């Protein structure tokens, strides 16, 4: 197997079958793919096409039934449980469709918490988190609870949370799904800007075909199979 240099994530002939019997559901079939720094990759496909499975494999949250997953130039099987936890804390950022902010914590605390997971010192956490909130234009909401802010603002908090640890890989699952169309596009543009400026890799799983114009690579998934890339 060839491990490409400077590649953030690589899937080589990956298949994933749930209920690993011959009759089990096949979520992904023989997928090969590579994600590089500075790329914004759009993963398109209908519901049940295997997009979420694709993302969870990239996040190291589950292992493939066959094939190889390489994250940051190391095989997924070589990572221990603690190393995977550390990887998710320091090098992978997540943006979820329903934002999944912790409702008991303020906006600032939500962002600071992931920094604590990465082992950042408490004093530095506050300063850095505030810087990110400011960059995303939501510094005034730092003491607000998630229940008191709009959907668009929540998504910005989620983006700040994903970026704050300097993650090289940002995984976004339907990031525009719960937003008005204009808001959704603004969010994707914001992500693209961060991806170019900071040489990060953003992988977006979405139904939203308007994002195609912003993506540097578009992948189509259908019934677990990857159709020929539209643009590469």
């Amino acid at each position, binding site marked *: 197997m060839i491990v490409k240099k400077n590649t953030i994530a690589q899937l080589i002939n990956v298949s994933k079958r749930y209920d690993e019997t011959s009759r089990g559901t096949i979520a992904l079939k023989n997928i090969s793919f590579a994600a590089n720094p500075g790329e914004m990759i759009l993963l398109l496909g209908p519901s049940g096409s295997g997009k*979420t499975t694709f*993302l*969870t494999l990239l*996040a190291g*949250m*589950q292992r493939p039934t066959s094939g190889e997953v390489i994250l940051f130039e190391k095989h997924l099987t070589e990572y221990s449980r*603690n190393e995977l*936890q*550390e*990887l*998710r*804390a*320091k090098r*992978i950022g*997540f943006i*979820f469709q329903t934002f*999944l902010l*912790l*409702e*008991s*914590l303020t906006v600032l*605390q939500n962002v600071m*918490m*992931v920094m*604590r*997971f*990465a082992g950042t010192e408490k004093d530095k956490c506050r300063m850095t988190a505030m810087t990110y909130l400011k960059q995303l234009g939501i510094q005034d909401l730092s003491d607000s609870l998630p229940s008191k802010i709009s959907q668009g603002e929540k998504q910005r908090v989620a983006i700040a*949370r994903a970026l704050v640890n300097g993650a090289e890989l940002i995984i976004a*699952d339907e990031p525009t799904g719960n937003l008005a169309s204009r808001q959704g596009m603004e969010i994707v543009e914001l992500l693209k800007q961060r991806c170019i400026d900071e040489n990060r890799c953003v992988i977006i799983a979405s139904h939203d075909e308007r994002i195609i114009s912003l993506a540097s690579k578009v992948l189509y998934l259908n019934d677990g199979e990857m159709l020929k890339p539209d643009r590469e």
Partner: protein
Amino acid sequence: MYALSIIIEQRLRYLLTSIGISFCILLMFLLLAIYKGVSYGSVEYVRSGKADLWILQEHATNILRSTSLLPSTYQEGLMKINGVRSVSPVLFILASIKLRETNASLYLTGIEPDSGIGGPPEIIRGRNILSDNEIVLDMAFAAKYKIRIGDKVPVRNDSLIVTGICTGTNMFVIQYAFISLKKAQDIIGFRYVISAYQVIAMPGADLDALRTEICSEFKNIIVYDRMTFLKNNMQEMESGIIPILFIVILISAIVLTAILSLILSVSILEKHRDFAVMKALGAPNGFIQGLVFKLSAILSASGLFFGLIFYFPVVSIVGKIAPEVATKTSPMQIVVISSCVMLISALSSILPNLNVSKIYPLEVFK
């Protein structure tokens, strides 16, 4: 910060939980205080006595739950032994008396009024007995039956005048009362019988030698030094009360653990999604386990706080409703219970932590 935020978010529920926990802690405090109170009341008589040696009938080990009968004629012979300064006989009788249409029990202790030795540990009101028609009562007994100094208490066919109220004499199930030895002997109908002799030695006397000499001079007796006799009485008291209190304290601790485990498990169930998110975002295992422990510790600490706030008024109310329920509180008891509660808090977080370990980060994508 997250543990505190969860609690602040649902403050009413956690306030009610803390109050529930505080009742368990209150029960533990109260039982320990009762144990201490009974312990004090049961053995203070021996502990505070001036006797260097106690002489009892052979095989008797204590004055709480063993019978000792000796002839009162030994007193003269004992006085003749070298190194003996004084010999005071004492007679213990379990007596039932009729007070305000109810039967009351007293641990009547007959002493020689002249010497006063073997009398109450501490008289808080009035004075000790001086004659055969007087009696000194325990404070709790007097409070329970609303008896004051100068009142008359019927004992058999006599009425004894209350001259003093004492403390350190409440054994919870029964209280000491002090009368003259002659009156005590009249009550049982045997003029020359006593229960024990309290011997005070000359200053500098060798107590071991004195004990050996007494044993060789008199038949069918046993002689204890003060510490051994105190220890015997303590053991007797503890063997009766500790198993009962221990079981009740154990039940309280189990209830407390169950409440804490239950409320933490409910919290985890409600915050299931948050825990999955934290795991997905790379929360170290120790962080989440620490979070559950912090929740448990905060609830226990607030329960402890409320328990302490409620404790003193409750003790005061208990003292008014049931004066015979002797309680005694010391800072050490608070330290002991607080340590136990914190230990319970750690134990209570084990089961919820097992539940947390079953939450998978993958769940956030569902």
